[in-house]
């Protein structure tokens, strides 16, 4: 959870090579129907005035030094909103020759070459991210709502009963062809004649 309670965050919009889908949604969230300004959020012209950076786009190589400058200029405590599939994980271009590939790959470069620790990041998936998802993110920061999405892991094991059934059916089939039992004989994992 974010250390400092953040209401009325001021946001600096930064497009690092995006297709503009998420950028239009960032602009759209300030129009009358979604109305981001209810939460005191404002778009500011300089990172020095901002609390958070709204980053869109899979960071292209040409943009890496500029994004670093912008993040350095953000005063502490820093928040980065990674908006859209491209910023969260690189999107559909995560491995091309001119793209860094999402905000986490970018943080590796930030640590190795510039010695900076990654700031608090909020991931907002979507392609493009709905304006309501952005409001949801502001709601989480302001503690109005709780995060819903959690990791899910399921392990499916077969029961021994089932496994035996399968093997029996198959062995019956093998038995029904007269030459197969000679060939399909259990043997060790190394090479050897049947």
């Amino acid at each position, binding site marked *: 959870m974010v250390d400092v309670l953040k209401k009325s965050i001021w946001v600096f919009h930064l497009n690092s090579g995006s297709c503009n*889908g998420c950028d239009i949604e960032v602009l759209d969230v300030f*129009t009358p129907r979604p109305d981001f300004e209810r939460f005191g959020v404002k778009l500011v012209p300089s990172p020095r005035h901002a609390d958070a950076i709204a980053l869109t786009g899979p960071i292209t190589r040409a943009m890496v030094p500029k994004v670093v400058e912008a993040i350095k200029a953000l005063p502490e405590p820093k928040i980065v909103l990674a908006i859209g599939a491209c910023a969260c994980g690189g*999107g*559909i271009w995560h491995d*091309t*020759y001119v793209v860094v590939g999402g905000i986490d790959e970018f943080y590796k470069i930030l640590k190795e070459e510039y010695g900076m620790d990654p700031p608090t990041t909020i991931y907002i998936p979507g392609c493009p991210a709905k304006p309501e998802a952005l409001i949801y993110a502001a709601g989480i920061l302001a503690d109005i709502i709780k995060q819903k999405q959690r990791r899910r892991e399921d392990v499916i094991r077969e029961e021994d009963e089932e496994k035996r059934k399968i093997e029996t059916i198959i062995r019956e089939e093998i038995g029904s062809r007269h030459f197969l039992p000679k060939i399909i004989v259990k043997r060790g994992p190394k090479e050897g004649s049947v």
Partner: protein
Amino acid sequence: MQDIKRVIEENNGKIVVEHDYFLLVEVSREHVRKLARALFEAGAYYSTGVGSDERPRNGFFAMYHILNHEESKKYIVLKVEAPEHDLRIPSITPEIEGANWAEREAHDVLGIVFEGHPEPERLILPDDWPEGVYPLRKDFKYNEKVKPVRKEEKFVEREDALVLPLGPFHPTLHEPEYFEIYVDGETIVGARYKGFFVHRGLEKLAEGRLTIHQIPFVAERICGICGYTHMICYCQAVENAIGLEVPERAEYIRTLLLEIERIHSHILWFGVVYHLLGFDTGFMHAWRIREKVMDIAEMLTGNRKTYGMSLVGGVRRDIDEDKKEKTLKALREVSQEMKKLFNDVLAMKEILNRIEDVGILPKDRARSIGVVGPVARGSGINTDVRKDHPYAAYKYLDFKVPVYNGCDVLSRYLVRADEIFESIYLIEQVLDQMPGGDIMVERFEVPEFSVGVGATEAPRGEDVHFVITHRGSKVYRWRPRAPTYNNLPSVPVMLEGEHLADAPAIIGSIDPCFSCTDHVTIVDDSTGKILFRGPLEDAIRRLKR
């Protein structure tokens, strides 16, 4: 039709493939300039150029120049080849201005040297890309990471002016562009730009990792405003290459979504222009009305912007009666509210004074530069891909193409306003006449190495895609060319002699979409956008104070 074939044959061109949409013409290096000149004089304009590495096939590199001849309703693709050991092709830029960027780009990514090119400089690759490494050659992997060559970023000093860096992040810029302005007091005396920050390497990605059925999803993400047009254009290019007929119902559904995208894009433009003129009330009203169109799109396709609805051979989802009714109801509301908004705004003298007789683009200049879309129609040129090369269901529908002769920002404004209402009329016809039947062709064969050209009328103008197929469900070469590419060179002409305060509205009037112009760059000036360095600097120097 016969004339254009005669022109080609007289100038040593050999017609290899004849299709109802395009002609593939092979020409040798010695004769390409003359043939290009002859075609330009016959009334064709330069659409785009594609370089391709065909060494695995026949040991040569090829350059395809695509020209659009509206009179004969065909695209003419000129193919010139060069062997690897002698990789030089005569440049056709001295004959046709529009070929400038296409040739620079082919040089950047393939290493072809264009002899006689006036400005052979790096265009699209990032600054720290090493020399001599050509990404679109077949021996370069799409995900190969090349070590950066860090260069010192220095300002180029000038004695008579102060250097002012601008960008790539600036409150007025929605997209990253970088600019260095030379100012003498308040006057701009020059500019130096750098762009292509949005180059993401999607052409190489399409050749490398993706199959022919996954590329529509990449095409959709070229631009977040006119993405569906790119998806349809790619599907049409492949369908032309294979010779596939799409079922009628699918054509109607495609038309429906294309028109919805046009409405949303134009209303978005109105909002942005009002904002650039300082009229934020209009911006908020326009985008409030636009929400209704986004709701229709979400109901029909499942997403507000990336519709994801079309694949090669048809569309993915059908539309039922209930959705039809909801669409019509919402569109009627949009139509009423936009009429009210336009009536109110056009009665405000303050707005009219700022856009009337401002940003003039004379008709003959417009033709020689090759502008497309509402910019051309605002200067009196009657050009529209939906009428010139009919595609999808437009051949069965009745609509007008608005053309205004004012050549100023007001004309482009009125063209777009009329187009919104024409689009609503088109959607009503589509929903009324939609036939039954299948929506997708299930199985089809893809022949190897087949060339296809697809074109659509995006909200911003003509959009062209060029495809060469390959075996095994892959694509050999794909080149999307967005409409803003052709419209950008007209901005210096429009800015000539204007006041600096009018610059944002003028540049906004071509509806620039930087991300579309994808591999290309666009550059900006202190408030809006700029393009070519040379002519732009001249234009700015001549700005009256």
